[in-house]
């Protein structure tokens, strides 16, 4: 379901939501220990000075190391005191992980994602298979919730990205390949013996699975992927060959800190270039000048991705992602800016381990 708002209406709604969230996170009755203590030492009062989303620029860039160093309890909003929470960790990081706590945000995000697609895109009542990082990740609960929300159940095959990164770091390419085969073996077994019509996985695993079997003949109707860069050629290859032009395809851009950004409908006219739209107003993506992050890039140009997350459970202003993307204008489905052809930040100038799972 597309947004019914116009671009100005969406902006007004975002400003109103920003005021509401600032009031929530910086009020002693509802805010969390971390932000309240921060405000006490900040020398300015967000409640007074933040009136629109543009005023978020008054915050410095959020340092996500905080999520590694601080105890999660410090991020519990007082309004949630006494409610046990989920602890979610970010993807492939090794060492002490970064953690975000949450209660219902993942449900809200994935219900909204589900509502964006019609009943047949991911057939209602159908079973799902998730092949990818489960463990302490938000995605594992989120995909199961998505399946349940659409009336189905979910099977899981785990892939540990931290182990894959370690194998690659050690130069154990052969073992990394064997591990990948092990994951695909399990997924293929489930596909063959259970009635699966919907799937979440990473693009690379999707490719590998399709090398074992025709996904169309296996009965798949809809695939939702996320996790790694997809160039237009890659998207075209997935749509035309991996999915044989017959399976619905929903690429997403997201992570534990944001939720998930949905892609605008893929068309040949767009040359299979992907554009993602953040779940605004709960999260806002901006494409900023890497050298002057206070400036937004012009439409059509690459810049660094900046994420602001504002829900009652979590507040994170102006976090600079390790990605870059093209700033794209609002579209029929989403009346706010999108981010196109996302790739790792400065990927043209440095070597990055990516797309390994």
């Amino acid at each position, binding site marked *: 379901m597309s947004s019914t708002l116009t671009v100005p209406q969406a902006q007004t709604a975002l400003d109103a939501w920003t005021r509401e969230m600032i009031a929530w996170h910086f009020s002693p009755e509802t805010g969390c220990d971390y932000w309240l203590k921060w405000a006490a030492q900040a020398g300015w009062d967000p409640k007074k000075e933040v009136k629109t989303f543009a005023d978020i620029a008054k915050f410095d860039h959020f340092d996500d190391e905080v999520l590694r160093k601080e105890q999660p309890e410090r991020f519990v909003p007082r309004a949630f005191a006494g409610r046990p929470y989920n602890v979610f960790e970010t993807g492939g990081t090794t060492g002490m992980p970064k953690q975000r706590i949450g209660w219902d945000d993942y449900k809200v995000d994935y219900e909204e994602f589900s509502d964006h697609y019609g009943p047949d895109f991911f057939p209602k009542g159908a079973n799902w298979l998730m092949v990818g990082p489960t463990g302490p990740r938000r995605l594992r609960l989120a995909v199961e919730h998505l399946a349940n929300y659409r009336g189905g159940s979910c099977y899981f095959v785990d892939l540990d990205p931290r182990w894959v990164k370690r194998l690659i770091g050690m*130069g154990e390419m052969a073992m990394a390949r064997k591990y990948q085969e092990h994951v695909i073996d399990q997924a293929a077994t489930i596909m063959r013996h259970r009635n699966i019509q919907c799937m979440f996985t990473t693009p690379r695993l999707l490719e590998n699975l399709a*090398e074992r079997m025709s996904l169309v003949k296996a009965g798949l109707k809809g695939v939702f992927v996320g996790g790694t860069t997809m*160039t*237009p*050629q890659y998207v075209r290859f997935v749509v035309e*060959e991996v999915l044989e032009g017959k399976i619905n395809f929903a690429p997403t851009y997201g992570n534990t800190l944001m939720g998930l950004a949905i892609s605008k409908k893929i068309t040949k006219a767009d040359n299979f270039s992907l554009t993602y739209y953040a779940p605004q107003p709960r999260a806002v993506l901006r494409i900023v000048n890497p050298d002057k992050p206070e400036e937004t890039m012009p439409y059509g140009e690459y810049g660094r991705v900046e994420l602001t997350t504002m829900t009652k459970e979590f507040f994170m202003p102006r976090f600079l992602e390790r990605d870059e993307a093209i700033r794209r204008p609002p579209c029929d489905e989403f009346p706010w800016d999108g981010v196109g052809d996302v790739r790792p930040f400065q990927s043209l100038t440095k070597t990055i381990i990516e797309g390994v799972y």
Partner: protein
Amino acid sequence: MSAPIHIPVLRLGQSYRSLDKIAFNVEGQALEISVANSGLIRRDLQHLPRAVEALHAIPTATLVAYCEKAAELFLKGNLPWGDDGRLQSPEDYVQALSQLTGLPHSLGRQNMGKVHAAMANIRAILAGLTRGMPLELFDRGFIRQDGLEVNFFPQTDSLGVLLPSNSPGVNSLWLPAPVMKVPVVLKPGREDPLTPFRLLQALIAAGFPKEAFGFYPTTHDGGDALLFGTGRAIAFGNDTTLKKYAPYRHIQVHGSGRSKVLIGDDFAGDWSKHLDVIAQSISSNGGRSCINASSVLTGHHARDIADALARKLAAIVPLPRHDPNALLCGFANPTMARGINERIDELLQTPGAEDVTARYRQGPRLIEAHGQTFLQPTLIFCESLEHPLANTEFMFPFASILQVPQEKMIASIGESLVVSAFTGNRAWIGELMTSTNIERLNIGPYPTNRVQWEQPHEGNLFEFLYRRRALQGDLVAV
């Protein structure tokens, strides 16, 4: 300017225009190369049995004739530039190759001749590889030799090749494979997609089934898909490539050559007679080949030889790419030239080495001339084998020269692709023949780049692709 020429991916018979492209400009003409993603390659390789079938439908004798015809087409024919019907003349090819790789026209033509000869001499090459077995071996799977059935069977359904960009001549290595009914899957070097594409067009035009060939300009990831998706593969590269793929027995890595000229005591006194051969070993093909000598070891007169050789090498100067006398190659990537130059200067800081060519060279080693960046020939005299410049190689006429007692040479050379041993000393030749460090041995005053078609280069391709097994019993129906 006309519409860009587009070189497609060739997917075992299907031409494919990718959305990912590499763009070049050749004398004002835009050239686009489609780039395949790794998954696309993996998917295609599942269809290799069809490629094998297509080759097996044709008798080997016919494939040999096709190869000989392709040799002429490659050298003289107008062949598809890309996928839009425009044709590429041999001259177009040489000019574009020069623009993309820095190879002067003269060396481009020389390499063309080398590849042509590899195809035109395919009968001699196959005879050399199989030690004279009749061609029907590839049709029936066995032959009768001296009253015995000799059965060889293919160990793979394809040969994958990661090609370099430094020298088009290396393409001659994979050429016998399709004649031996093994499909070929190529990843061209970034700067030279032209040579393998032209070769494939020549082979297809001559009669080879297009299903037998894959042409995949691709990323490192795609290169891995190719190497690990084919039953036998060859990767060209440097020491890093060698280290990466060394654990995999099905991958043959052609790394640095570290080829050498060893001057035996019996030849050292007459060294001045052999200077031209040594200079040719170092500088032929612009010093870009792994068979170029990168070290000269002599038991005597090392300083005198160094001085005379440096004078000879320094006379090889940058010339315009179209000059028929051009011997040096420009660098398509000037940053690489600067990096090599800085590295040599840095290593020269280690005591015990002198750039002897600096005495005679016109201008510095790194030079901008005729619109290109060149590295001028460089000969380093090293006092000891331990010096970091004593046993290294770079992609231009570069060599070290050392005085090493003859009896210590074999133990000190390390792995060497080609050794030209200037000697007639029977005992020493015997030792050279048993050295496991030498891949190709020339006995006598011959240049390291000497080619004899009947001899294998860097391993025997037939033995890499085929294996012998016992075959006994009732063979009447076979």
